[in-house]
């Protein structure tokens, strides 16, 4: 196992067949996650973030879904594993936390039962020991008096608590990879911060790799080491988190960053928005997928499809004109700074 990266996704393509035809929800996604690293996956809703995550765990309906490419986990391609082997990986080696903790917990079982269930399945422990371990996990996530909580049902606890339960459940078997799909979106800001802290602490403790799926760049800045920006089923930019915030290359990433309101910003100025909406997946543009919404788009962008290009500093970008745009923006920044 040593020597292989924790997770290496290569040219992943996930297609759904439906009555209307085939839809490609994830189209050639490539990224890597190492032990102890947090990769942020960012993008608007419908860009394929969640499908990518669920593809890694192969949670999608196997009959109507086709996967291509490779998902190498510790050197083993998950896409070629039989379902039976996948059962040992899900919840054990790779775990997932979902966005909506209320609906992601089964309402008819106690939270203790639900945490203990994966411990029993993966660690060959008896019910009693599994329960003890469940209490232990709840304590790790910072839930007060966990020995009482295990006997409660999901509807009896608050939203933040539920997300902690989800985390306890996901981490109960010490996975090497944690996929968190918008784990804080449904929560209050203060609780958001606490939850992110819990995830981060446990990551350090277990030396896990984490994939943090979010549309919130604030979350990315807080916890991620690297970021992949997705648009319409493709990664369009990938870089260190610092580099991304300091010098975003792709026009879409720039747009995303500009659309964050800042406290110090000029209030009279209108907030930046990216014009247009994400096109439907069954109607993707021919050339660069962002071209119809891109302020810099040229004819080339409309007809020719850009590849993901790696720059000297390790930053990856999928754009024909990123060099010119950077130069132009730098110049205009100088001008605005001067005035």
């Amino acid at each position: 196992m040593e020597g292989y990266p924790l997770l290496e996704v290569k040219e992943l393509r996930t297609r759904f067949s439906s009555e209307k035809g085939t839809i490609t929800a994830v189209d050639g996604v490539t990224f890597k996650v190492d032990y102890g690293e947090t990769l942020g996956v960012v993008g608007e809703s419908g860009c394929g973030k969640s499908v990518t995550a669920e593809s890694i765990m192969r949670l999608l309906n196997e009959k109507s879904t086709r996967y291509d490419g490779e998902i190498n986990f510790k050197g083993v391609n998950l896409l070629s594993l039989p379902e039976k082997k996948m059962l040992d990986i899900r919840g054990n080696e790779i775990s997932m936390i979902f966005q909506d903790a209320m609906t992601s917990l089964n309402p008819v079982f106690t939270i203790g039962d639900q945490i203990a269930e994966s411990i029993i399945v993966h660690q060959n422990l008896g019910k009693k020991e599994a329960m003890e371990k469940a209490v232990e996990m709840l304590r790790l996530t910072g839930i007060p008096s966990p020995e009482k909580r295990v006997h409660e049902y999901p509807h009896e606890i608050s939203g933040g608590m539920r997300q902690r339960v989800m985390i306890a459940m996901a981490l109960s078997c010490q996975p090497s990879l944690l996929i968190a799909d918008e784990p804080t979106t449904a929560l209050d800001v203060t609780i958001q911060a606490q939850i992110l802290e819990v995830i981060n602490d446990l990551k350090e403790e277990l030396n896990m790799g984490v994939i943090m799926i979010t549309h919130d760049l604030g979350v990315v800045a807080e916890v991620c080491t690297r970021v992949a920006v997705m648009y319409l089923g493709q990664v369009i930019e990938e870089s260190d988190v610092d580099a991304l915030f300091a010098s975003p290359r792709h026009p879409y990433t720039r747009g995303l960053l500009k659309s964050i309101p800042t406290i110090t910003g000029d209030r009279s100025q209108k907030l930046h928005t990216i014009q247009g909406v994400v096109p439907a997946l069954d109607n993707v543009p021919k050339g660069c997928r962002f071209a119809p919404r891109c302020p810099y788009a040229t004819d080339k962008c409309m007809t020719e499809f850009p590849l993901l290009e790696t720059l000297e500093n390790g930053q990856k970008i999928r754009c024909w004109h990123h060099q010119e745009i950077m130069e132009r923006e730098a110049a205009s920044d100088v001008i605005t700074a001067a005035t």
Partner: protein
Amino acid sequence: MKAYILKRLLSMIPVLLIVAIFVFFLIHMIPGDPAAVMLGPEATPEEVESLKEELGLNLPIYQQFFEWSLHALQGDLGNSLYMNQPVLDAFTSHLGPTLSLALLAQGVSIFLAIPIGVLAARKRGTGIDRTFMIIAMLGMSIPSFLLALLLMLVFGVQLNWLPVAGYTSLSEGLWEHLKYLILPAISLGTIQAAVIARMTRSSMIDILSMNFIKTAKAKGLKQKVVIYKHAFRNALIPILTILGETFGALITGAVVTETVFNLPGIGQLVINAITRRDYAVIQGTILLIAVTYLFLNLIIDLLYGLVDPRVRLNRK
């Protein structure tokens, strides 16, 4: 929980009262003189008068109702004019076949419907799903007595496999008992099965699309565990409701089905009572069935608490 049961019991009082009023006034809806109608055209005026006296029909109506209710509460539902025995005795002596039939039919329907419903939900949109749902639609559209006649035609008359009439009680041996009940139970259970299968399917489809199913899969649970433990336990809640609601349909069907197969059950008791104008029996029987139905629904309501913890909490 105790307080909840008490509350539910108290809330049943007005309903029971209305049921009682309705049953009581049934006899007064008879056009003309009830006593004369009961005794038939050959009765002499003296006989009519003495029956009136016996039934208390000469008393003011509120007093009649009061006395009737008082007796009913003590289990005295009057006497059958024709059979010369208390209505309650007549009812209990006819209860066995009906109960056996209803339970067997319910058993057959649950046994058939739930696996089919779950399978159809899992194979949603495929040929298997469509086939089962078309069969269910057909099953829902065949009145049980008609299916009884058709089964009788095929298995009793043409193939001669099973008896088409008669009954032996359980004390004569299980097979002897069941032999007479198989065809009635199938004809009675089919509509039930169709309704339950459709309900199970749609309820499972709803549940299978929920987020916690994904969580369960993400834990690495086998598909079987995901479906039967996580999904089915949730889908059971609406299925239980249907089971309670269809009890009425079960009795409806049992009454008519019994007549087709000549089973000496409640259905036969009622039908005979109608032809004999034995109104005390009609009153007593429908009162007892209505009360049973109300209590059965109460039990089903309490069962929810066992299946669904959210209900339990609300009741605390």
